[in-house]
């Protein structure tokens, strides 16, 4: 439950439904188990341009779902993301 109305996966249509499907597929591929679309991607679902922006960021960060781990990098991207979240007092 968030602060605003969110469109759930079963209700989504058009580009929003496509973004939900892609986000779930990319995570599921990387994690090795099915992961429904996380709520982070549903927050802005009634203004879907922002959902699309987040979906695009996930596409770029995961190589369209083909990779998830970057532990060999000096500073993995997800490490940087974690730092920014912690520094912002955001614990999602």
């Amino acid at each position, binding site marked *: 439950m968030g*602060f605003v109305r969110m469109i759930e996966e079963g209700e989504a249509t058009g580009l929003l439904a496509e973004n939900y499907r892609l986000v779930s597929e990319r995570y599921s591929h990387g994690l090795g188990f099915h992961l429904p679309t996380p709520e982070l991607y549903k927050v802005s679902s009634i*203004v879907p341009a922002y959902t699309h922006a987040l979906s695009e960021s996930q596409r770029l960060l995961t190589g369209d779902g083909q990779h998830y781990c970057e532990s060999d990098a000096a500073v993995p991207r997800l490490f940087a993301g974690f730092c920014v979240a912690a520094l912002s007092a955001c614990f999602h």
Partner: protein
Amino acid sequence: MVLSQKISLEDGLLRAIADDPENAAIPGPRGAALRFLAKFTRRSWRIGDADLEALRKAGLADEDIADLCQMGAIQTLAVNQADGGGIWFPEAGGDAVGHDRAYYAGAQEGLTGAGAAPTRGRGAIEGAPGAAAFRIATDPDAAPYQEQARRAQTRWGFVPKLLRALSKGREPSLLPFQQIALELLEAPQSAALTPRQHALVRALAAEASHGAYCEPTIQQQLVRAGEAPAGDAPETDWAKARARDERDLLVFRFAEKAARNAYKITEKDAARFRDAGLGDEAYLDVLGTVGLQLGIDRMANALGVAPDAHPLLDAA
């Protein structure tokens, strides 16, 4: 901790960062990156050559620095959406690593509140018009950059300096996200927010991040919306001075909160939008606009990118 295990980051490392991100004793390039990102997130307008040199000394190449900045901007939007949307880490009951949220709230307030003396980037416009001083190397021949440059040329008639400054990024490139961010910022993304409110929300967010990069665009948006250009040094209550009615004031106050202290957003903020007849769409549009604006400003501040000579508004 499922995700941390998947990305092969030691749990202790993440815990140390979460416990005290400002002072975590992390060695090597990751420690240097953490210290840089602390400034990027909280005081990007104070980043200077010395900060980037510290990253290089820790072994980071300019590609890594460009990547850090882009990752920081992407995460800025994600944080904004999570805080403003009121969603929490589901497996930990709202507390992913078992620490005290209030501790961070206090720490961040001390860094982003009134005590932080602004050294606004506007001086960069006056001192060096049109001359970007990118702090990292660029690579105009990079294939991902070339592709993005073509798209930018088609949309705006020129390639923004910010994209040029980020041209030496890693593969896979994150540049398409920055292009999307700049495009989304051209207009409100819902009918619930007027172009004037959208432009003023951008101006408020830029004020919070001491960002000058988007100033020509925002000024143009304000003029198009029949609003006077934003002043250089607001001495009074800027939001109140610009508000034409209570709805305006609600929008601008929320924009300020989202830009400066997003962790303070509560369900009441969204309820106020509904009570005022603005609805969730306007709330989310303000939130998204602020998140994208902060990300762009932080990157431009960090990389020393001066404003473009022309507004970033669709030439078509």
